[in-house]
C-alpha cells in the first residue's frame, strides 16, 4: 500500500499507543518511544514491522509513541494509521491482509 499523506491514530492515554505515518522516499523509517522500553521495545518493534509488512507498506516514516499498549492494540493502531494515510476507500478489512 502507498502512503499518500500523513495520518495519525491512537492517543497518549495509558495503555494506548499513538502511531503517526508519513510518506517517505524509500524504506521504513521507524521512531519508537515507549513507557515499557526496557522490557518490550523489541516486541513492539516487531509487531509494528509485521503489521506494515502484512499491509504491503514498503515506504513510510513511522513514529510510535507507546504508553504500554498490548500487541493487539498496537496492531490495530498501525492498521488504522495506514488505512488513513493511504486514503483507503470502502470497507476496511480489519485483521485482513491487503497485500
Amino acid at each position, binding site marked *: 500500500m502507498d502512503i499518500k499523506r500523513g495520518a495519525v491514530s491512537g492517543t497518549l492515554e*495509558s*495503555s494506548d499507543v499513538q502511531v503517526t505515518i508519513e510518506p517517505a522516499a524509500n524504506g521504513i*523509517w521507524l521512531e*519508537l518511544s515507549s513507557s*515499557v522500553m*526496557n*522490557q*518490550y521495545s523489541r516486541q513492539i518493534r516487531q509487531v509494528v514491522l509485521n503489521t506494515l509488512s502484512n499491509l504491503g507498506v514498503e515506504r513510510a516514516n513511522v513514529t510510535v509513541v507507546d504508553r*504500554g499498549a498490548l500487541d493487539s492494540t498496537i496492531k490495530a493502531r498501525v492498521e488504522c494509521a495506514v488505512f488513513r494515510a493511504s486514503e483507503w476507500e470502502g470497507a476496511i478489512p480489519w485483521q485482513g491482509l491487503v497485500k
Partner: protein
Amino acid sequence: MKNAVGRDIPDFLLQGGREVFQGNNYKDGAIYTKPGPTVRAAVKPEESKILPSIRDAIELCGLKDGMTVSFHHHFRDGDYVVNMVVREIESLGIKDITIAASSLGDAHDPLAAMIESGVVTGIQTSGIRGKIGDAVSNGKLKGRAILRSHGGRVRAIEQGELHIDVAFIGAPTSDEYGNARGKGGKSDCGVLSYSVADAKYADHVVVITDTLVPFPNLPPSIDGVDVDYVVVVDEIGDPKKIASQALRMTQDPRNLMMAENCARVMAATPYFKDGFSFQTGAGGPSLAVNRFLESIMTERGIKMRWALGGITKPTVDLLNKGLINCVADTQDFDVASVQSVHSTPGHYEISTSQYANPVNKGAFVNKLDFVILAALEIDVDFNVNVVTGSDGVLRGAPGGHPDAAGGAKCTIIVAPLVRGRIPTVCDRVVTVTTPGESIDVLVTDYGIAVNPSRPDLADALVSAGIPLVTIRDLKMKAYSIVGTPDDVEFDDRIVAVMEARDGTILDVVRQVKKFDLDISDAGVFDFKIV
C-alpha cells in the same frame, strides 16, 4: 556468593563480617553489644537549649565533612526539615555527608543536586524515589546507598552499624527543653516513632519545631533528656501534605474484588478468631480490605485484639466501633489517625524498634496474625519487589513490608496480575526486597495462589471453598496477556545494597544502562530510540 533467595552477592561486599542473606531466622540467638552515644553533660539549670537558627545548631554540634545526619519521614511529602538542614550544611561548605533518613520522598528532590555536587555522598534510607532515585540509579552518588526496612534501620542503629553524628528531628510541638510530640501544633503528624532510636543513639540531637509550647510537653515522644538543642522555625512542613484529609477508598471494581477475596482468605484461616491481630497497607486494595473485614467480623461475632503499623481512618473507625481493642501506631497517614492517636482510648504510639526491629526481644510484628501488603512485582518463588520499577530505576520503599511479612503468621500479597503492560507476577523480580519465605498467599484478579511451603493454609482455603491456582499458572496467564518481558539490563556498578532485616545482604541494585536496541534487519533504514 549466592544467597538464600538465589541472588549473587559479589565478594567485595562481604568484608568486615558482612554476610549474605541465609534465611529469616539466621541471626536468632546472635550476641551483640549496643553502642552508646557520646554526649555533652548539660548540668547548669540556667542554660537554654533554644538556638536562633539551624545554622547555629549545625555549628554547635560540630558537624564536619564525612559525618552522618539523620531525619524522620513523619511529614511525608509535606516535609521541609530535610531540605532546610541540608541547604544550611551546603552553605557552610560542609561536604561528603551521609543522609540517614527513615525514608525519603518526592519532597526531597532538591537532594539530587546535593548528590551531584558532592555535599551528599552517602544515603541510607527506606524510600528512594523521584530525582534522588534517578540520581542514585544513574550512578551519581559517590558511595553506595543502603536500603533498609523500617525495622532493619533501627536494628542497624541499635547494633552500631549506623552511627548518627547529628539527628535533626522535626517536631510538631516541643518545649524549650526538647520534649517533643507529634501533636498539638500546626503541622501535626500524630507520632514520632521513627525518631525514637535516633534520639537515643545519636551523639547530638536537635529538635526543630514551629510550635514551642510551655514546659513540660507531656507525654513526650522524644525525651528532652536526649536533646541538645531546640530550634524554632516558621514552618516545619506543609500540613496539607503531612496528613491527607481522607485517603480515597478505591471504587475500582477490580481492587474491590481483590480486597473482598483477601478478607475471604483471612476468614478461611484458623487465625481468624476472636482476638486476632492485623496490619494493612494504605494503598488501594489493601486499604479496602477493612471494609469487607468489618462485615465478616460482625457476622461471626468476633473482635480484633489489636491493629498495627501505619494507621488510617478505617482502622480508627473500627476502634471507635469497639471492633478493635487497641491500636499500636507507628505512623499516621490521614487527619483521622493523627487526631485519634493519644486521644481515643486504646490508640497508642509505639517506637519503630517496638514495631519491627528483628534483633530486639519483643517486636510487635512477631505477634501479628495477618498482614495485607502490596507488591510491584512478585516472582514464582514468592519473592517480592517494592523498590525498583520495571525499568530498573529506584522508585519505592521497602518500608515495613519485609518486617510485617517476616513476623506475621499469614502474609497476604494483593496485587493485580498486570499493570498496563507490566506483569506483576513474573519469573524473577528485578530486586528482592522481601524474601519469598515470608509470603504465604498471593491474591490477584486472576486467582489466588498459596506458597507451597504452607500446605496447611492451602488446605484451609480449599476447605472453605476458595479455588486456588499455582503462582506459575498466574505467571503464564500474565505473560499470555502482555508477552514475555525482556530482562532489564544493567551496568556492572552497584549503586545500592538492599539489606535484609537482619543486616545480611538480600540483593544489590546496579546502575541502569542506557537502553540500546540491536538493530540489523533489512528493510528498516533507521531505527531511533527516543
